[in-house]
């Protein structure tokens, strides 16, 4: 039985809920409103309405380059984390691997250690090895921080898989690899999708790793945004930020279209 709220109770609950949503979304709304302001400086409240700042930002070749660096980096890191994370999560959960618990803890540890320190350690390691390819270094660093998200979400959905479905498939004549692709994977698709979304956003938004590993030619968007801001603080910064928010929103909408967000988030 579902209880019904009394009228005053409903007002209280919805009112409180709206306040929390406002608390979460207000900073983003401020940024978006600034991006269409006619004022030459980023001041709140905005004045007038214009898309000029977006035009300027998009015309800026450096911005376009940084945006592409970040998108390619996020897609590549997510693809690699998926390719590594799926077999890792499966093996750690389904096979009797000696030291599985320790291995899982190590795989997830980048989520616990301060990312800034991880980035610094990576920089020192790579410098000592003479690895100077910034694109490759960024890729490795981003895989390191996105992998735990995929391992974690895939592990969680593997634990929810109905094992009798796999057993039924085996009795029906499916060899192990076909059981995996035809029965297990369709059940963990939501976890994979959610993991990929987290991974994409973590990489796309990453500052503390990129800070150390970027060079003058390969500048991811958050680094570019930060250095632009220290030069000039006009609404073009807000326009760039709005484009980043839009990219995240597009990723969420894409996931919703592909597998349904509710399923992906396990709700």
């Amino acid at each position, binding site marked *: 039985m579902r209880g019904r709220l009394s009228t005053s109770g409903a007002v209280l609950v919805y009112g409180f809920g709206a306040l929390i949503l406002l608390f979460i979304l207000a900073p983003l709304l401020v940024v978006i409103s600034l991006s269409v302001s006619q004022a030459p400086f980023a001041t709140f409240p905005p004045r007038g309405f214009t898309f000029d700042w977006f035009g300027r930002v998009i015309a800026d070749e450096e911005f376009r380059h940084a945006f592409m660096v970040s998108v390619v980096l996020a897609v590549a890191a997510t693809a690699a984390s998926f390719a590594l994370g799926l077999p890792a999560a499966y093996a750690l959960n389904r096979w009797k691997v000696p030291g599985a618990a320790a291995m899982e803890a190590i795989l997830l540890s980048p989520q616990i250690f301060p990312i800034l320190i991880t980035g610094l350690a990576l920089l020192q390691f790579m410098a000592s090895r003479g690895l100077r390819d910034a694109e490759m270094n960024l890729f490795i660093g981003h895989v390191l921080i996105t992998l735990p998200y995929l391992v974690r979400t895939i592990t969680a959905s593997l634990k929810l898989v*109905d094992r009798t479905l796999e057993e*039924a*498939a*085996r*009795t*029906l004549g*499916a*060899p192990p690899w076909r059981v995996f692709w035809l029965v297990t994977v369709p059940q963990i698709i939501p976890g994979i999708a959610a993991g990929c979304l987290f991974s994409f956003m973590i990489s796309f938004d990453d500052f503390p790793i990129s800070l150390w590993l970027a060079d003058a030619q390969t500048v991811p968007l958050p680094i570019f945004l930060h250095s632009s801001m220290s030069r000039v603080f006009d609404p073009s910064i807000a326009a760039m930020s709005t484009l980043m928010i839009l990219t995240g929103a597009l990723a969420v909408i894409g996931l919703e279209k592909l597998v349904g967000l509710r399923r992906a988030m396990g709700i």
Partner: protein
Amino acid sequence: MAKPVDLALSGLSKHYGRNVAVEGVTLRIAAGELVALLGPSGCGKTTTLRMVAGLVEPSAGEILIGGMQVTKVPVHKRNIGMLFQNYALFPHLSIAQNVAFGLQMRGVGKAETAKRVADALALVQLGSFADRLPAALSGGQQQRVALARALVIEPSLLLLDEPLGALDKNLRESMQVELRQIQRRLGITAVLVTHDQEEAMTLADRIVIMRDGKLEQVGTPEEIYSQPATRFVAGFIGAANFLKGTVASRGAEGLAIALPGGGRLLLPTETQEAPLVAVRPEAIAIGPADGPLPGNGTPATVEQVVYRGQMTHLYMRLDDGEPLLAYLANRDGAAPDGAGMRVGERVMAHWPASANKVVRDN
């Protein structure tokens, strides 16, 4: 349908560390026979079935299907059909795709697959549901789809793991009949795991009672009920009163046993010790307490009378404190009147000598 084959288990055992799940199960199931593995939870019946399926690797022993050694053969090459308690339909596939799954694994062509899927769904009367998803079907319908999916591959064996356990009572009974008819019609060898004795009685040609990982008794439902070998079997299948006394005399008729509660038994056996005797409640009749002591009977006091429609259950207490239960048949729904139907009344319970079942005390 492929020719029915027999199943032979020989010394089949499964140990988990020091825990013994199944110990030395040797059993032969004839081609076309339906055998039920029956027992309380933890008796090893499910583990035994899963070893036959190949889902659990035996610690020792052999499994032969149609004379072929399959102990080391992986699950997907054993050609078995299996039903699970939770149906185990693939939720992301339609009913027709579920049924087609096993045929696809065998590389059967599209046209033949379509025909065989349609035939299998017609067999379970769900032809019109082909395009739906499993979630749109009721539990009984889902299990019929699972049956079609298991049978369409023409398996050598049909393994049933508590297949009707999740259904409500009425549906379960009609599904039992349907399952039995289909199994008979196809003549497929089948093993059923259940903890429901009525289901085992209804479906099985033979019942295997298991306890603590071992076989306790194997026989037809009638043999198991009318000639229980042990105290456990007599108590697990139906209800039983257990009586034990001392030898009073030996004569041509056999052994006369005196019960501590003042009753007596006549047994046609030659044992030295007085054995344990089981008496089914429906064998017991009630007479007036002041009558003569019958050959097999005992005085008792009525403790509780429960009207159950076709029967009245009479709970009694013997003079030594042991309980005695009688089922008295009700004609036209009316409880038998007369002697001994009131609480506290003294009665004489009696039964024919043939109702005395000598059982091993275990």
